[in-house]
């Protein structure tokens, strides 16, 4: 792992432009559809080990626009109890990155909507970031969301690797993120920006207040180059509509993971998605 920190030295000097618009499935989606995009998160390996692609396929059929598949981590500090639980169950079931990539080998035979992987930085670093990016692209993943990968480390260590494999890195913006930093995130992003609805871990229901609306409006008024998608606390039709009034789309996570924790979850997927989209 000593090689990880020096990894950027091992890569050929590629000088990818930040603004390089490789048109992956994400870019195509955002070109085509500007409003009411619905994304759903679920943890790979939860509640059962081998249903990852089944769930993805069912979500596409139910009308979801893009997916986030979580790779589990033992210490998910940005997550509330629901996703902590799904992550631990997935690990107990035997989920790991090797297995996830095996499962995703036939992803593109069954699923055509954009797919992102979401997880924490340590499992990715242990797998090898170069290898992770290569494998993700090979199985047809379009982007990655790693909440604890900071901008400085992304830029200095991993940006070239992501670019080489045409993977989008998705940055988060919170109500506390300063405008200059949002501008920088906008420059570094090449598919969309993930807006957190509030200062919170995942799984707390969105309380739409004047403060939240002022924040959403403030971001909207920045006229960012990248589309925005709001996540954290989107649990039903009301919160979905509120979020998509200000952003191009919204992400449902914990609320869906809760459905996965009930019996007969596969059959409940269409109904749940319908309840969000209305």
């Amino acid at each position, binding site marked *: 792992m*000593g090689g990880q920190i020096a990894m950027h030295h091992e890569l050929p000097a590629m000088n990818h432009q930040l603004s390089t618009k490789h048109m992956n499935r994400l870019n195509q989606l955002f070109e085509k559809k500007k409003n009411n995009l619905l994304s759903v998160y679920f943890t790979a390996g939860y509640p059962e080990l081998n249903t990852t692609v089944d769930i993805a396929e069912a979500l596409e059929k139910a009308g979801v626009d893009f997916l986030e598949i979580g790779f589990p981590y033992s210490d998910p500090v*940005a997550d509330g109890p629901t996703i902590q639980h799904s992550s631990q169950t997935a690990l107990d079931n035997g989920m790991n990155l090797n297995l996830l990539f095996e499962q995703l080998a036939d992803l593109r035979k069954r699923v055509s909507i954009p797919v992102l992987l979401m997880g924490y930085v340590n499992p990715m670093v*242990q797998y090898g970031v170069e290898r992770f990016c290569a494998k993700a692209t090979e199985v047809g993943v379009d982007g990655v969301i790693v909440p604890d990968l900071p901008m400085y480390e992304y830029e200095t260590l991993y940006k070239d690797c992501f670019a080489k494999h045409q993977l989008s890195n998705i940055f988060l913006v919170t109500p*506390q993120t300063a405008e200059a930093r949002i501008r920088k995130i906008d420059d570094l992003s090449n598919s969309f920006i993930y807006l*957190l609805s509030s200062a*919170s871990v995942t799984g707390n229901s969105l309380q739409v207040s004047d403060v939240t609306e002022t924040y959403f409006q403030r971001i909207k008024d920045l006229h960012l180059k990248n589309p925005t998608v709001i996540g954290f606390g989107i649990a039903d039709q009301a919160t979905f509509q509120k979020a998509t009034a200000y952003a191009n789309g919204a992400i449902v996570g914990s609320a869906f993971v809760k459905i996965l924790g009930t019996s007969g979850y596969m059959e409940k997927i269409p109904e749940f998605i319908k309840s969000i989209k209305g």
Partner: protein
Amino acid sequence: MKYTVNEQGYYGDFGGAYIPEMLYPNVEELRQQYQQIIGDAGFKSEFDQLLKDYVGRPSPLYLAKRLSEKYGANIFLKREDLNHTGSHKINNAIGQILLAQRLGKKRIIAETGAGQHGVATATVCALMGIECVVYMGEIDMERQAPNVARMKMLGATVVPATSGSKTLKDATNEAMRDWIGNPVDTHYIIGSVVGPYPYPEMVAQFQSIISLETKKQLLEQTGKELPEYVLACVGGGSNAMGMFYHFLEDEQVKLIAVEAAGKGVDSGHSAATSVLGREGILHGSRTILMQTDDGQVVEPYSISAGLDYPGIGPQHAHLHKRQRAQYVNITDDESLQAGLLLSQLEGIIPAIESAHAFAYLEKMKFEKSDNVVICLSGRGDKDLSTYIKHFGF
């Protein structure tokens, strides 16, 4: 200055600030302001005054004659156990509460393992009249019950961490989640030299008073500022970093960091991070941690709640890699024996954490003229039930 932090918060390959965006404004505020705040004359004088009149510093450097006789060297104990609240943790807690006040924070959160940092934090919050919430692993709350009661008596709210191994790492996760949800009014007082930059550096600076005093006291007592050896126990590593800090550039001083081997390094029940760990990212910094091939954090084990942590601070990872300090380990049984020995030779019952450092004396060979300093980081009151159970008193 090859062992200090660079502008990006790295010690060589280790450190940085691997935090979710939700924590960025808090950590960035700290990074931008802490050096200026703690460098301010008003801060320094208040800090020094509290360390003197409230904590009772300087802590004595005590030449332990009977212990010295046994091991054939001059063994000095740096008596952090005599600090108010019973350990070195108060040094950092005082520093950070003064910092939090100057940052305008109204609420303090902390994680704790053995409860020493939790008690120190609850103490300074009582002193300053600030709300205090301490996260503590459910298992640690059972094995360190007296410290839980102390925190409550001091007015703190103690919240059990019920996820994962229900020990220090999970308490740290819960504290970080709290901070994510309360980014504006809350300061997180991390208790060790771990976490995202600037924490490891800031905590080391507050704890560096230990080695600063030691140098002065050694000069007074022996005529020489530098000892041959300096020993300290390491969980996250704050007492060790404080004890090493002003000796780092004095390369002739041998620094020995003692980790907890638990039931044995290869037993599957250990917290000997430098042996069992690999480079990775834990609690916001790139360091050495115990993990699976897949990068999942492994549950550590030690009889000592304060050493029961799967990582070490990033500066320790750097000192280990650069071989500036030697990282060794001691089992549960060896540490308890050393605790008994110190009690009966010197009349001092040490915390089981600190007893790990004393146990390593058994494995060393000294010249008669060697000066050896051991950080006696805490007193053993909180561990009496463990000692009693083991020895059947």
